[in-house]
């Protein structure tokens, strides 16, 4: 039972989100919101790796999401869609099914490489000074994109709608949503295993005390580079999905406001809690949609609500605990992270 419970949970989520969308039960609006929920889950979980587990304060995570969004959108539009930016498509639209996931991965890789701009300074620069480096990287990203006129500059880049339509023509399926679902599962799987691995213990040690961790033979530089690249790569993956969901990307969409939203999701859920990040990402996205009738006051009500939550729960919804720590009865059905570690140690 315990062995399959995670798969069962994933299957259940698939059954209530992707399958009805495929069969056309959900309206396009609901599908759009569900995809956004998935993207936000990836973003929150990936940022939690840096801000929660490693204890650095990244304020410019949207830059990496933006890199992923731009790279993957440029690739798909160049290869399989006719656009005013690049002219005719290089490949026939049938290829779109294959090009899309590849472009997502390439977007993630590009974001991971871009994250070296933060990871390498992080060897010496720490804490709030590193936060400013991430913020400066966010400014630099926006400025660079605005200066590249081929991809629309500040006006933004579009044409991903054609790619999504091409995929739909080849085989009718909510493709972006399916890939979002796969990415969410993959993200949670990777991050969960990463933080329970020896490396994960290493980054928690860096958070608690970097010098002590170094003395305990933790290779801090290597771990920092790996963690930044993993986290930012996942953000880039989410960015690619985001670009294809909105079918429009522009540089100010991946700026301070987007970074703020990600930070809020991480700290609302609790630093260093994957289930907290998932809960808060789902809750936050749905809350924003529920408040849409308020119009502009939505952006007044949301911060107010979040301040109140912070005042009553100063460690976020979950603190640094996981769902299993809060509801111990669930241990009957799920493997907790401690068991994963003991199991790994036993087999070593």
């Amino acid at each position, binding site marked *: 039972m315990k062995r399959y419970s995670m798969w069962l949970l994933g299957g259940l989520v698939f059954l209530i989100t992707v399958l009805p969308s495929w069969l056309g039960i959900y309206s396009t609006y609901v599908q759009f919101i569900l995809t956004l929920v998935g993207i936000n889950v990836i973003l929150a979980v990936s940022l939690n790796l840096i801000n929660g587990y490693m204890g650095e*304060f990244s304020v410019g995570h949207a830059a990496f999401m933006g890199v992923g969004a731009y790279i993957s959108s440029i690739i798909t539009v160049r290869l399989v869609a006719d656009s005013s930016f690049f002219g005719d498509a290089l490949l026939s639209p049938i290829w779109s099914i294959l090009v899309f996931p590849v472009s997502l991965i390439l977007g993630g890789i590009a974001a991971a490489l871009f994250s070296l701009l933060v990871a390498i300074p992080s060897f010496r620069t720490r804490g709030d*000074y590193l936060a400013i480096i991430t*913020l400066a990287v966010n400014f*630099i990203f926006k400025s660079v994109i605005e*200066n590249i006129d081929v991809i629309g500059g500040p006006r933004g880049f579009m044409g991903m709608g054609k790619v999504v339509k091409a995929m739909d023509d080849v085989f009718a399926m909510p493709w972006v949503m399916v890939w979002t679902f796969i990415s969410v599962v993959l993200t949670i799987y990777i991050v969960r295993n990463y933080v329970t691995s020896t490396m994960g213990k290493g980054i928690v040690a860096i958070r608690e005390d970097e010098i002590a961790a170094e003395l305990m033979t933790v290779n801090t530089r290597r771990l920092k580079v790996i963690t930044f690249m993993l986290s930012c790569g996942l953000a880039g993956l989410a960015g690619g999905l985001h670009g294809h969901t909105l079918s429009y990307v522009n540089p100010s969409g991946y700026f301070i406001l987007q970074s703020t939203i990600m930070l809020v999701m991480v*700290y609302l859920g609790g630093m260093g809690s994957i289930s907290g990040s998932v809960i808060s990402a789902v809750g936050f996205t749905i809350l924003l949609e529920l408040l849409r009738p308020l119009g502009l006051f939505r952006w*007044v009500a949301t911060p107010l609500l979040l301040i109140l939550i912070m005042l009553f729960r100063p460690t976020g919804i979950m603190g640094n605990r996981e769902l299993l720590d809060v509801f111990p009865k669930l241990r009957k059905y799920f493997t907790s992270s401690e068991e994963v570690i003991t199991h790994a140690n036993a087999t070593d």
Partner: protein
Amino acid sequence: MSLDIFLQNFLNAMQWGSFLALIAVGYTMVYGVLLLINFAHGDIFMVGAYVGYFIGTFLLNKFAVKLPFDLPTWLIIPITIMLTMAITALVGVTIERIAYRPLRNRGAHRLYLVITALMFGLLLEYGNLALLGASDRQFPTLFEKEIYTIGNLSVTNVKIIVILLSFLLMGALWFVVQKTKWGMAMRAISYDRLAVPLMGISVDSIIVATFVIGSSMAAVAGVMYGTAFPILSFDMGMLVGWQAFIAAVVGGIGSIRGAMLGGYIMGFIQIYVAAFLPSTFRDLITFSIFLLILVVRPTGIFGVARRTKV
């Protein structure tokens, strides 16, 4: 590069740097005392500009509610600045009182306070947008703009006043921090926060004083900004405030002279880049330079590395 263009831009850079330095000082003071990045500070600057806008229009008798008499111009400027400082300081202290202090007393992690500050910034920004609408507002002309021409150089009185006033304020701040008991207490808190309450100093009142000083500096910056560039918009706090914040950190956060230096460095880089290169490159070059400074000096220009014991 001719000397005239250089000097002309020098004055522009001094003016722009003064705004940034005045805001950066507020960031750095709160950080020095609380170790809190007060992300709402940029929006306090915005609040200052808007409060100044309303008081200025009211005193100039251009508002819906009118005074029974006209005030002389030389009186309007100081009254506007004083009242704006007072009201903005009240806003700053209110935020501290209702959002930061309860969290601090409950022993929340430092970063949760930062997130609350971010939320308060959003709240002020979008509260303004929702209440006052998206249309940009014209800041009232508090005094007539005069242009003096010296050779090929033209100087407006606004520029001179902005530069002189900010120097005056920073001098006053230096005096308060270095020469008064309150200033000594502020320095003591940033030096050792555990020992300060043991010496019979009320930490909470020092924190309130810090917020009062920081917010009123931002208020002056807001009024001056409105006078120099008379268009106000709801997101000016984000656009100018975040840059001032970066300037404060590059100067060495927690250090007041660092914040001033950072503000002026940023002002100079931005103005000179915009003067000699396409202005779209301004942010790219500015932030690349700042990133390099932080890589070379990981604790900013004047920042001191805190020694950690293991």
